[in-house]
């Protein structure tokens, strides 16, 4: 499997605090990787760095062979990286259908869409995605009438619509019921069949449901990496996680 994402020596400072400390991290194509770590370990920051929200202090990020360190978010998107935020981020007054429509993979330039709305093939794809996330019955409803869980799924659907090579999911099950989390985990597993996914997650039930390879971050550095079963047995990982989360 080819290496898709390669991060070397990444260091980030925010307001004087070093959040990522000389971090090495890589992912292969079509992998589903789970990123674990206590609060403040730098998981969300890592995702922010990859998507170009901040410039790193030092280090490089390579994606599909290209150096994307320091690129702007919309350029990074075009290279094929999509991000899901911790808090559901969608377009509140637009309908569910429109939310997905606007996220569809396609030209993003101002003059590209002046005379068109949706082509039939695109509409097909949108409906496919709506069915995947289970919101096809609410296609016409404004996004802000959705429940919290449904918003998370909507944002997942929007990301799938943009057809990225790499999907960065930041705690997508936040605020969901157990059933919702179970469903979301299934959804992510299905998405991961055709995309590369990096998942940040706290809930060990969800992690156990779908994780293959796992990376543990601690204080901005890589603490452990490997199959879930192995990592869970690691002494230092247990010590770091003592008192946080449940796993047995």
């Amino acid at each position, binding site marked *: 499997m080819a290496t898709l994402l390669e991060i070397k020596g990444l260091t980030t400072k925010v307001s004087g605090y070093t959040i990522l400390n000389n971090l090495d991290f890589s992912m292969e194509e079509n992998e589903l990787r789970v990123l674990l770590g206590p609060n403040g370990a730098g998981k969300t920051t890592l995702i922010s760095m990859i998507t170009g*929200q*901040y*410039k790193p202090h030092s280090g490089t990020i390579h994606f599909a062979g290209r150096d994307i360190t320091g690129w*702007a978010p919309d350029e990074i998107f075009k290279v094929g990286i999509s991000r899901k935020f911790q808090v559901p981020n969608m377009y509140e007054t637009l309908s569910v259908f429109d939310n997905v429509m606007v996220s569809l993979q396609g030209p993003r330039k101002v003059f590209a869409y002046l005379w068109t709305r949706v082509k039939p093939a695109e509409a097909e794809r949108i409906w496919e995605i709506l069915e995947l996330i289970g919101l096809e019955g609410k296609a016409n409803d404004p996004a802000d009438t959705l429940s919290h869980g449904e918003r998370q799924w909507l944002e997942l659907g929007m990301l799938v619509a943009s057809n990225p090579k790499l999907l960065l999911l930041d705690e997508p099950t936040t605020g969901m019921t157990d059933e919702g989390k179970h469903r979301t985990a299934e959804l992510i597993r299905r998405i991961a069949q055709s995309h590369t996914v990096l998942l940040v997650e706290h809930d060990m039930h969800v992690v156990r449901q779908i994780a293959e390879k796992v990376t543990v971050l601690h204080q901005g550095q890589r603490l452990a990496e490997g199959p879930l079963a192995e990592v869970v047995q690691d002494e230092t990982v247990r010590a770091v996680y003592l008192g946080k989360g449940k796993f047995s």
Partner: protein
Amino acid sequence: MITFQDQIFMQFLTGFSVVAILMIAATGLAIIFGVCGVINMAHGEFIMIGAYCSYLLREYIVGPNFAYTLFLAIPLAFAIVGLIGLLVERTIIRWIYDRPLETLLATWGVGIILQVVAKLVFGSELKEAKVPHILDGGVRVIRFLQFPYYRMFLIVVAIVLLALTFYIIFKTDFGLKVRAVRRNRRIASCLGIDTAKIDMTIFVFGSGLAGVAGAVLAPIKTVSPSMGFNYAVDSYMVLVLGGVGNLWGVAAGGGIIGEAETVLSFLTNNVIGRLLVFLFIVIIIRVVPRGIFGYQERR
């Protein structure tokens, strides 16, 4: 004779008092915007009301011969404008904190109402409030040019106000809560801090400061219902340039804008002076989008 350099120097000195005025006017706005995230478009009118307090006090209450009018006017203006701020906050602002652009519009409406009321009550003629006797006159700086005592007084007031605000925000328990709310509102409320009450208190305090600004400005500027607007716009520019959420921003912004505008206006004219300062601000913003001392997001 007075040379050109002399005149420039005088302008430079006067600029300090302009800086002081800007700082006094902008501090109230800065803390409101920094903590609550809203811009009060009626800020100019709050200043105006403070000025009218000064005038009223002199005209009707203590009479023109009372030497210490100003020192009474300051707390009076603080109280009255603070009360008005409280009213505005409770009835209007508190419902729309999540929509900062719309607070702009709503407070603009408040400003219009205050202006009209002032016009109806006081008439639109210019009124005067005199400089207190003990501050009359000035210091001889260069030959015939005098630097008025009152302007020096203004500089003192500005420093005192800034120091007072600094003290409250950084050295008191209340200020600690305020800073917590500003940094991370959600966590602060989880920790039991009543964020709504903090917002209200800050808004009232900021409004009161605007009133003080007006009271202190009244003696050197003529008092009229529409006097406040220009100060308001200048205050906004101070925030944009200096940055929000940091009292140094008020000092820096006020300092640069005050001096630049005074000297440039002297060299060219008022309009070009303002235009040049505006262009300067726009250029600086390109480099530091959130102001010189503002929290920059790194891109």
